[in-house]
């Protein structure tokens, strides 16, 4: 410390050159292919994918030690954010969720044998995957799972827990790992439909045919979230039907694009619906069916009936 520095000019010159190099790296990274389509993975994304692949065993080891810390921390953060009333409300919701989970488990139990033998006829699942670690920074909600291209997993495939509860979609996939963008990530979007409880069974993802008939105007919109914690359905017209307690499931449509998700994947329940005359669309808040802090095992839906391409 305090030693005489050699040639300050060479240091400044190097600083400038490397700053420009950093900006070039950033530009290339943003412009290059993001691995969402096969064969379009740019060199910098490939480097990150390779690093994720190499780090997977280390992350698995650290996950055992650090996961309890992470979950506790997340809960503490949540407790600081809420008022007492909201905490009680959440406890009630948790109790309700447990009750519905118990009945769902009962029904799932009966279907497990069918799943093991031939799995569902409409979805093809990849192997059961373990959540290796959360990834990303302050602005993202992503996880890494331990299945990859060798298990038939590709980018942009839905990831579920149980049979049909949507968790997110795969983004970057390497040979043995895949990154999953959770439905609570602000970049996640999916076409969804709002269905009354009588018309949908979340355990089996069976939708009543009445929902799809032309004369019924059940709400359809785009699942969206933001950094302030809003998670809901946007672009639902004022005239469409949407009530508290309704189920939110994927519609299987994303505008005029190919089907990104199969229809009928369970996303959550409508928590509140507000509409004002001056607004064009309803404001619908959704309570997600999955909890990011409790994800342990997931499955990737690799194919489904009616998928384009």
């Amino acid at each position, binding site marked *: 410390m305090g030693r005489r520095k050699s040639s300050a000019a060479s240091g400044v010159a190097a600083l400038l050159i490397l700053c420009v190099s950093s900006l070039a790296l950033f530009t290339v990274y943003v412009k290059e292919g993001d691995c969402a389509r096969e064969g379009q993975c740019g060199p910098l994304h490939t480097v990150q994918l390779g690093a994720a692949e190499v780090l997977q065993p280390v992350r698995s080891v650290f996950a055992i030690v650090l996961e309890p810390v992470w979950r506790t921390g997340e809960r503490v*953060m949540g407790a600081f954010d809420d008022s007492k009333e909201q905490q009680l409300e959440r406890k009630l919701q948790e109790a309700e969720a447990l009750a519905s989970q118990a009945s769902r488990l009962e029904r799932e139990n009966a279907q497990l044998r069918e799943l093991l033998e031939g799995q569902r006829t409409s979805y093809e699942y990849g192997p059961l995957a373990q959540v290796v670690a959360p990834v990303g920074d*302050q602005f993202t909600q992503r996880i890494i799972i331990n299945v990859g291209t060798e298990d038939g997993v590709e980018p942009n495939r839905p990831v579920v827990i149980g049979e049909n509860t949507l968790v997110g979609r795969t983004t970057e996939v390497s040979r043995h790992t895949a990154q999953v963008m959770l439905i609570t990530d602000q970049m996640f979007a999916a076409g969804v439909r709002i269905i009354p409880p009588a018309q949908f069974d979340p355990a089996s993802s069976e939708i009543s045919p009445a929902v799809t008939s032309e004369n019924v105007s059940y709400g359809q919109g785009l699942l969206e979230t933001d950094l302030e914690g809003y998670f809901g359905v946007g672009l639902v017209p004022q005239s469409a039907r949407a009530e508290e307690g309704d189920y939110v499931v994927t519609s299987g449509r994303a505008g005029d694009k190919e089907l990104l998700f199969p229809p009928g994947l369970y996303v959550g329940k409508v928590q509140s619906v507000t509409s004002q005359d001056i607004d064009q669309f309803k404001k619908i808040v959704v309570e997600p069916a999955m909890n990011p802090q409790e994800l342990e095992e997931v499955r990737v839906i690799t194919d489904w009936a009616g998928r384009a391409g």
Partner: protein
Amino acid sequence: MEQASVIRAALVVAVAALLEAVIGPYLTFGYFSPRLTLIAVVFAAAPLRDLQAVLLGFFGGVLLDALGGDLFGVGALGGLLAAGLAARASAVQSRGTERVLLAQVAGISVAAFDILGYTARWLSGLGVPQLGEYAVWGVLPDALINAVIAFLIGGWLLNIVNVKTPHSWEK
């Protein structure tokens, strides 16, 4: 007599980047995240010559970009900034206050890195929170907590980077 080892400094930065990539996501709560690489760059680059410090900062930043899943280039810029600030700070300090001064540099580097990350997300079309809100509830606490972490582990890092060499009369 103490002399800084470039190899040791690079190793410290590499281990910090690896640790940050592995345990960082588990220790990210809200807008706070431990910036171990930046802290390591500040303390490892401080005793080095200007050119060495800048190269070390770039190396640490690129490593952070490669091992993490964030926008490439942001870490490299952040590392350069941290190394540059550390090199300047070490030129003016008085003996005995290195740790305090470098902890402050680490805090400033983290704040600058947060702002860089915010700008990069905004430039690449990704969503960002309100700047004022992020500055108060994101950048400030992140910088403060990381400065405290830097102060706590700084002495240890300096000891690793500096190698004791015998005086000529000791040989």
